[in-house]
Every structure is written in C-alpha cells, then in structure tokens.
C-alpha cells in the first residue's frame, strides 16, 4: 500500500470524488491559486498549504473556483448551491475565520433540513484548518470545533491520520448533511499507509487505536498520537491504557467510549481546544451521566488552558497538551482510590 501524507490523502479524496461526481465542486480562496494573474498557465498552487494542488489543472475553473476574500459569500454560495442540488466543498482557509461567516453555516446550511420541514438539506463539506503548533499566533491557531459541534444540523469530523482523513472525507462528500471537516495543520505532513482506491469511513464510528484495560483515554485530532505515545510509555509501568479516537465529534460514538469505560472505570479526555464548553467537557459529562456506575475515579480533562493561543513558540509549546501531561493524568486516575 502506498504511503501518503495527510495532505495527499485529502487531495486524493477530493480528486476521486470529483472524478466520480460532476456535482462536486470546490470553492474557496486560492483553492486554484493565481487567478487573475499575469501568468496564465500556472500550475495550480492549491492554497497556502498546497492541499488542493493540481485540482484546478484537472477539473478546470468551472469546478475549482477561486474567490475573493469573502468567507460569508463562499459559505453562502456553497450552501445555496447545495440547496439546489450540487455537492460543494467549500474551503475556510483557517477555522479561526469562522467568525466572519458563521451565519451562513449555522443559521442557514445547518438548519435548512429542519426549518424547511425535511424538504432538503445542504449536502456540503467545509474543509478548514485548525490547531496550534506553527507559531501562527492567536488568530490562526485555534481549535474551534466545539463551536461547530454545539450546532444541531452540523456534523463535525476531526481526522487524526491520513488513512482516516481520506475515508472520512469521501464519506463526508457523499453525506447529505453539512459536514465541517477539520484538518490539523500540524498533521498535513504525517504519513500513513493509504490505499489508492476509494473507501469510506462512516461518520459516528470511533476507532479504538489501542486496547487497554486500566485506563481509557479519549483523544481528539492531533492529540491521538500524543495519547498513544503516553500510553506506550506507561505500558512499562504496568498501566494498560486504551486510546479511543472518536474521529467524528458530531455525531459522537458514545457506545465505543462507554464500552471501554465499563472495563476500565478510569478516564482521561485529551483535547487541544480550550476547556469551557468543549468536547472534553461533553465527553466527560456524557460519561458521568451514562457511565456513572462504572466510574472509579474522577474524569480528568487534559486540554489547552482558557487563554488565546500565544504567538511565542515557547509559550505555544506550553499551550497544547503534551504526552507528558497526558501521562501524568493517566497515572493520577490510575492511582485514584
């Protein structure tokens, strides 16, 4: 099986779906790259991170659409196109920018199906970049997905590896509801075995990344690999740690988490987002409501602090959870009596 980076896997998923279905279009800022510029026959740069590279050259300007800087119009255009039968993929370059355009997603696209009495939903995907780690500062580094997960009518996907990213994106494009697909900028370069052919991963199915019987760690996005690192290190100390990657946070695969908690009774939730009203809180509260009888220790949340993301790389390194902090949390719930 070929090795692909997550960047390539995402590119590949779009390419396959655009070949398969002429109603799939891609719209966003610089998704082609170079429109209106003196050099005409430019190889499509495919965005600041190169994730959509080459799609313009294969599918042309009718289906790979560069836009002005106009997020509300991009999201609205995608929503309106979806409402009239297309399957747009809209790019929100950095998820941090949702604040200028969220109405078109949360009040419009997310509510169509419900407020129109089931006539039609918005079969659209918003691909967007999240996360700290690149020194991009307070307005380009946030893990803002709890806000998306809060909204009824949206689905929210958070892949942690290239293999999942491809299967989840293909599924998201075929899904008939609006999906926010959150790509962590620090994972684009991560490699994985990824099949050339098309495959789908259902939304709402967690992946048990690692079995374990002492402690359950639920980790999201970039946190998954840190959790695995922590779990492996603790193996030596005789602590058997399960790591669960929900992969989609809305819908959330509650059963897989509760099954593990039933066995372990001890839980750590790891989330890069800031803590208040976060997925870490959501998962912890779900467990204390539906898995209480199994619980043998406090549920520990390992998250970013309730602060903006600092620009300084030195401070940024303190900001997001680390394997060391995850280990400490696992040990503390393990030791709880």
């Amino acid at each position, binding site marked *: 099986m070929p090795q692909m980076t997550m960047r390539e896997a995402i590119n590949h998923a779009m390419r396959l779906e655009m070949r398969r279905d002429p109603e799939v279009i891609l719209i966003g800022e610089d998704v082609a790259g170079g429109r209106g510029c003196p050099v005409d026959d430019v190889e499509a740069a495919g965005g600041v991170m190169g994730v959509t590279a080459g799609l313009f050259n294969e599918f042309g300007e009718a289906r790979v659409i560069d836009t002005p800087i106009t997020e509300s119009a991009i*999201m*609205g255009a995608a929503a309106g196109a979806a409402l*009239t039968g297309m399957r747009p993929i809209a790019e929100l370059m950095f998820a941090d920018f949702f604040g200028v355009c969220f109405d*078109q997603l949360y*009040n419009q696209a997310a509510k169509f*199906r419900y*407020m*129109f009495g089931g006539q039609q*939903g918005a079969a659209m995907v918003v691909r967007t970049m999240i996360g700290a780690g690149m020194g991009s500062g307070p307005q380009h580094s946030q893990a803002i997905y709890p806000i998306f997960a809060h909204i009824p009518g949206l689905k929210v996907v958070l892949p942690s590896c290239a293999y999942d990213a491809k299967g989840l994106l293909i599924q998201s494009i075929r899904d008939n509801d609006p999906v926010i697909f959150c790509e962590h900028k620090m994972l684009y370069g991560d490699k994985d075995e990824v099949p050339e052919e098309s495959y789908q991963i259902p939304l709402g199915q967690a992946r048990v990344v690692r079995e374990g019987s002492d402690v359950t760690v639920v980790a999201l996005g970039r946190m998954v690999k840190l959790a695995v690192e922590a779990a492996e290190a603790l193996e030596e100390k005789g602590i058997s740690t399960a790591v669960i990657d929900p992969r989609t946070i809305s819908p959330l695969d509650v059963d897989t988490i509760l099954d593990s908690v039933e066995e372990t009774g001890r839980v750590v939730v790891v989330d890069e987002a800031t803590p208040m009203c976060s997925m870490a809180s959501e998962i912890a509260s779900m467990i204390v409501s539906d898995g209480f009888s199994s619980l043998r220790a406090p549920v520990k949340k390992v998250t970013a602090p309730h602060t903006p993301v600092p620009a300084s790389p030195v401070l940024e390194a303190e900001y997001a959870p680390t394997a060391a902090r995850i280990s400490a949390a696992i040990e503390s719930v393990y030791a709880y009596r």
Partner: protein
Amino acid sequence: MDFSEQELKTAYRTMRHMRNFDEIGRREFMAGTLPGFMHMYCGEEAIGAGVCAHLSDEDYIASTHRGHGHCIAKGCAIEDMALEIFCRQDGLCHGKGGSMHIADLKKGMLGANAIVGGSAPLAVGAALTAKTRGTDKVSIAFIGDGASNQGTVFEAMNLAVVLKLPAIFVYENNGYAEMTGVDYHCGSGDIAARAGAFGMPAHKVDGTDYFAVYEAMAEATQHARSGKGPVSIECIAPRWYGHFEGDPQSYRTKEEIADLEKNRDPILLFRDRVIAETGLTQSDFDAIDAESLEHVEKAMAAAKAAPQPEPADLLTDVYEVYD
C-alpha cells in the same frame, strides 16, 4: 400594452392574493391566533409580482423575513403557505419554519429568511448551480433597504460579479429598516449606485409600478440568462404598515401613510392603468378580487382548523442520518 389579458389578470390576481394573504393574516395575528411575527408586504406587491413574472419553477428566489408576497408570486400554493404561517403539521415546512422560513424547493423558492442579508449569498449559490450546470436559469435575491447595508450582501454582489453568475439583486427599498429611515441608514442614500459600483448594471425603478418593475426585470433576466453576469434593480415602494404588527410607528406621520394608500397603491395603479389602456374592465378586476378573497379566506380558515404537529416531530429532520 404588450401584455395579453391573461398575463394582466394573472399579475393582478397575484398582487391581490398577496394583499389578501397579509391583511387576513394580520386580522388573525391581532386576534391572537397566528404565532410568531407578522411582516406585511402591503404597498410592495408590484415588486414581487413584476420580478417573478419572468421566472419559471426552475429559476430560484431567495427571500426575506417579509416573504409572503415573494412566495405567492413564485407559485407556492396559498393553502400550504397558510398552513405554514399557522405552523400546522401539513404546512410547507411542517410548522417548523413558520412565516419567516417558508420554503418550497419544487417551486424554486429557497426560503424566506429571518437573518437580514442572509439570503443574498444563498441566491449567489443557486446562481452558481445554474452556471455550473450550464442552464439558463437565474437566481434572485430579494434584499431590503436595511439589508443593503449588511456585509453579506456586498460580498454576494462582488462574488456574483467576479464569477459572472446569473444572479439578480432586487432591492426592495420600502423606506425603513424597522424604525430607521433609509435616508439615515444608507450611506450614500443611493442603493442602486452602490450596487453599480460593484461592476454590474444597476436599475432604479418605482416599485409601486408593476410595469416599471417588469421592464427592468425583463432586461435583467435577458442579461443574466445570456451569461453576461449579475444585475441589480432597486425598487422604491414604501410600506404601509409598521415593521411588524405591533409596531406603533411613532416615527412616521399618519399623513404619510394615508397618502401612500391613496396615491401609491400598486394594485390600484395597475388596475387604473390597465383599464385605461386595454379592454379589461372594472368588473373583470372585481371578479378577481372576489375570487381571491374567497380563496385566501378559505385557505386561512382551513389552516386554522388543521392539526398541529405531533410532539415527536420535534426530533425529526435535523439530519438525514445521525448516529
């Protein structure tokens, strides 16, 4: 006059339906039987009618909180609309949308919208569908004078120009955004000129004159359908009622309103001109009036008596599948 009698009667009936729908709706609202808000379209009927006269079910419109007239003009069944404003189970949106969210996708009616400026980007999206599919369909955004200041609307215009989309921005300048006058809230005071500066043809017409709206829209659709890009039309037609029912309108004079009713009733203006210029007579129009009144009264009465949604409906249609 370049219209068949049939066309003229249809236009008149559409406007009369609009008037009756809102007047009867208002009566019900004041009686406390109608939930939510009630935004009257009275005085602006010629806009919706003149615009939609050029559209088929395959063309799209995206509407506003003041959307009943647009729905009627686009061909939504009065019965289904009445059920929806009463939030009944068999309404167009099964009672979940109500007055501010009536949608009828089979008719190309993409929804009223309770977010001011919310529908302009959506209309651009529908225009993108038309262009991508290579059809000659057009997509209309209805936009209030107040909404004309919303960032989403400016962005929608710019994107339509950049992508040369078959979108038509119809500004309904009815003089007010809630209680705030257009002379105050609109920087230049000239909505059409602002639209024109985005690089599209921009018309400005008397929105109480059906024929003026119709003409502008004829040009606009021709332009848009032939791939030349978007167009805007500012239609000036002051509203007769308050922003919504319950607005005491302390900010305007009774004389202003009386004058509108007397001199700028789009329905009367239409009727007088058509009688003057064609073979149609008072009694032709009186017949339509009577028929329309009966039609709308019946639809409203039926809706009022129709069953409510079931509690279980609360949880349906959030997603197609979610688990």
